[in-house]
């Protein structure tokens, strides 16, 4: 099957002399003898499937005109075949499947986030300029007064509705939303074309059933969007509609025919009038550092960004500190062999950690409900503490719930670390006359921190992006009504990214990605600190 020449024992380096040809041959024969026909068949089958998928993908992408993506697919498919048919490249055989997924859905998406942060991608800026033009024209269609009535028949082809139009000269034309009218051979009933080859004529009942779709139909008259479109209000007679807007492809301007306003492409990704009014939808362009500048200089955006960032750090730090100290305290309390029933306490305390956190947070949200929740109604006897609705109380509640979610982990970690400290240290210190508190503070705590510190850093990084606790408990709320983006007083950066991108009236992917970049930077700094501390990168070998 393949050679194992690269498969040398750990500890060797790449600078060692390569095995001789004879050695390689011998290794190859040994390897092939151990593999057998079955392995080769499995390999061929798997590669066949991969190649079939690649061919199909290539076909689809070529049809769509996506040449760059198609080229990447070809390159990957060739590389995969080369790697697996080669008798060498053993490490690559093991790495390739994982690397493909990792590169696309972890590395590429992170890079792509960086790219989106420099675009105006979002509601109103979703597609290309051509899409924006046709969508603008279609949305401002108005019936041409005194225009002739076109007899129409609603037809269907593979689920796509079209209109079969008889023009005043008696010719039959057919078209859909996406395809302009084209001449077609049709059957006539009197002056009206009623059926065309390749199309199914809708019966009256079907026309009634699909009225909504039919009245939405706007079949372009020709390739030039300025020629207008045929629409039908009733499914039997159509009228010519032209757009209020006139598109001048040469000048790149949109002119409103009724007011005479000229909207031109001024490089902001939308047609803009001289007094700054934008026609939406626009299209997607790169905007440089606009999103970052906007996030920092626009007061209504900068203020939320500041308090969200501060709260993110506060939330992560306090969460780590509170869970760690409670966990450490409990570990000390329960780390006594004379105490009975420790096992039961332990199981009970681990339970909060074992339950999926999204469920716990949802249950806490119910219990903390101001008017009906268990805490106010039962524990506090009918009080109305605004646990989740007051900006400061909501922060406290989030911290309490996160303490509940996180202390069992710290308890387990501290318990393990405490028990790993040898007893002789304690004995030696006692012999030297150290008091127990001094033993703990000066000897055990430092030893414990050495082992636990990397976990505390990891816990900080986790809580920095602790989406579930925040989103399930408060949804980031209470909402800040002054901010133009959906942001609230308990939002952390990651929930703000999510809400700006997906939950508002308008989605702003560009701004959300710019916020993601801030998180990247923080996470990168945390990682650098962690790597420096643990020297884990240097230790890799």
């Amino acid at each position, binding site marked *: 099957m393949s050679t194992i020449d690269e498969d040398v024992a750990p500890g060797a380096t790449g600078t060692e002399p390569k095995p001789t040809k004879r050695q390689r041959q011998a290794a190859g024969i040994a390897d092939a003898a151990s*593999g057998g026909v079955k392995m080769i068949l499995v390999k061929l089958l798997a590669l066949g499937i991969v190649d079939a998928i690649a061919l199909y993908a290539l076909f689809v992408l070529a049809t769509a005109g*996506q040449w760059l993506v198609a080229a990447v697919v070809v390159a990957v498919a060739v590389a995969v075949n080369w790697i697996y048919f080669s008798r060498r490249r053993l490490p690559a055989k093991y790495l390739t499947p994982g690397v493909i997924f990792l590169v696309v859905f972890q590395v590429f998406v992170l890079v792509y986030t960086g790219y989106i942060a420099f675009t105006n991608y979002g509601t109103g800026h979703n597609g290309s300029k051509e899409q924006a033009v046709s969508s603008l024209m279609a949305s401002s269609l108005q019936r041409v007064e005194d225009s002739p009535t076109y007899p129409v028949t609603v037809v269907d082809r593979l689920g796509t509705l079209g209109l079969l139009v008889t023009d005043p000269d008696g010719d039959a034309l057919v078209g859909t939303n996406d395809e302009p009218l084209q001449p077609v051979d049709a059957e006539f009933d009197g002056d009206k074309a009623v059926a065309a080859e390749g199309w199914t004529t809708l019966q009256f009942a079907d026309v009634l059933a699909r009225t909504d779709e039919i009245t939405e139909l706007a079949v372009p008259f020709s390739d030039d969007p300025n020629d207008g479109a045929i629409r039908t209000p009733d499914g039997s007679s159509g009228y010519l509609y032209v757009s209020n807007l006139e598109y001048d492809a040469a000048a790149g301007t949109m002119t409103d025919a009724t007011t005479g306003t000229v909207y031109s492409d001024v490089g902001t990704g939308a047609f803009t009038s001289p007094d700054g009014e934008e026609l939406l939808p626009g299209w997607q362009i790169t905007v440089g550092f606009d999103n970052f500048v906007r996030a920092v200089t626009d007061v209504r955006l900068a203020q939320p960004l500041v308090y969200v960032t501060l709260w993110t750090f506060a939330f992560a730090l306090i969460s780590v500190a509170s869970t760690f100290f409670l966990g450490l305290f409990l570990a000390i309390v329960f780390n*006594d062999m004379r105490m009975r029933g420790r096992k039961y306490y332990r199981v009970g305390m681990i339970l909060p950690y074992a*339950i999926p956190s999204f469920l716990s947070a949802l249950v806490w949200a119910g219990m903390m409900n101001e008017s*009906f929740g268990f805490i106010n109604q039962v524990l506090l006897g009918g009080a109305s503490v605004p646990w989740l609705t007051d900006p400061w109380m909501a922060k406290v509640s989030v911290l309490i719930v996160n303490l*509940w979610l996180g202390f069992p982990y710290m308890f387990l970690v501290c318990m393990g670390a405490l028990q790993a400290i040898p007893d002789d240290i304690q004995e030696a210190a006692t012999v030297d006359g150290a008091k127990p508190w001094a033993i703990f503070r000066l000897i*055990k705590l430092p030893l414990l921190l050495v082992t636990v510190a990397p976990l505390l850093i990891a816990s900080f990084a986790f809580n920095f992006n602790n989406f579930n606790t925040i989103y399930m408990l408060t949804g980031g709320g209470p909402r800040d009504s002054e901010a133009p983006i959906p942001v609230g007083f308990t939002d952390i950066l990651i929930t703000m990214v999510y809400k700006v991108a997906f939950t508002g009236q308008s989605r702003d992917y560009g701004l959300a990605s710019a916020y993601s970049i801030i998180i990247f930077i923080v996470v990168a700094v945390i990682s650098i600190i962690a790597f420096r501390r643990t020297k884990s990168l240097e230790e890799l070998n």
Partner: protein
Amino acid sequence: MAKKGTKEHRSWIEAPAVEGEIMAAALDAEARRSEHPPARIAGPRRPFSFGRWFRATGWRHVVGIVVLVFALFPIVFVISSSLNPHGTLTGSNALFSAIGFDSYVRILTDPQIPFTQWFANTLLIAGVNAVASVFLGALAAYSFSRMRFTGRRFGLVTIVVVQMFPQMLAVVAIFLLMSSISDWFPAIGLNTQIGLMIVYLGGALGVNTFLMYGFFNTIPASIDEAAKIDGAGHARIFFTIILRLAAPILAVVALLSFIFTVNEFAVASVILIDTDKQTLAVGLTKLVSNPRYADWSAFSAGAVMAALPVVALFLWLQKYIVGGLTAGAVK
């Protein structure tokens, strides 16, 4: 590493530990030092003194009970309200006032709430992701652990760095990537479970590979060498030796991936649009966040059923999980 760790822990537990006394001792250090040695030897013969018992272990039970109440009362509350036939949140406040399984029946049969479908989706997506990411991760970890090749160190460093950045940070880019994929390949694009599985697979590989790389390094290379001399090829060594020896670790990594996937909301909520394609995390969250939905008992019943398998798995394998979580820290 984890195995070794737990063994160590056990032996420390069996040894007479004194660390825990620190707090008690801090209160009354002198008294304890004079009292401690005889207490061990002659303890059973001495008459029982509540004061002494309380100072030694009794207060620990007080702390334990307080913490248990804090830890368990939300759980008791959700179980109680799941058994409550009345639907509302207010009706759930009187704990165990009524007991019945009506709300379980309601959430399982309500045609508006495809709870069983969510459950099946979650098991499918999390299960496939756990198995696939462990397998692909093990392949990569094997080559990093047992082979030497150019770019190996670069690959390792890349994996360590990449796994620091959770996939969730790129949720916007993932959404846009998936929506362009669905323009060309609707079968694996937006609103498909296969698409979500592929995304998760990419996100889980970094962490899993790195965890398993560490564990594979603890398996002595001499075992593979012996097998190689006996004529085993690299594939045979991988499947019949490494994977077998690392089986407990693979199970833990798979379980951690499983739990992570069950919990994942952000990415799942933007990729899965149709209600009956969603996972439990997305479905249940949207269910209770809907202000018109007032059936708190039915939600509680759903929450109890959703939590049970994960809690059971967790408690069953807790020793290994804790080892896996703290791997690398307690050396």
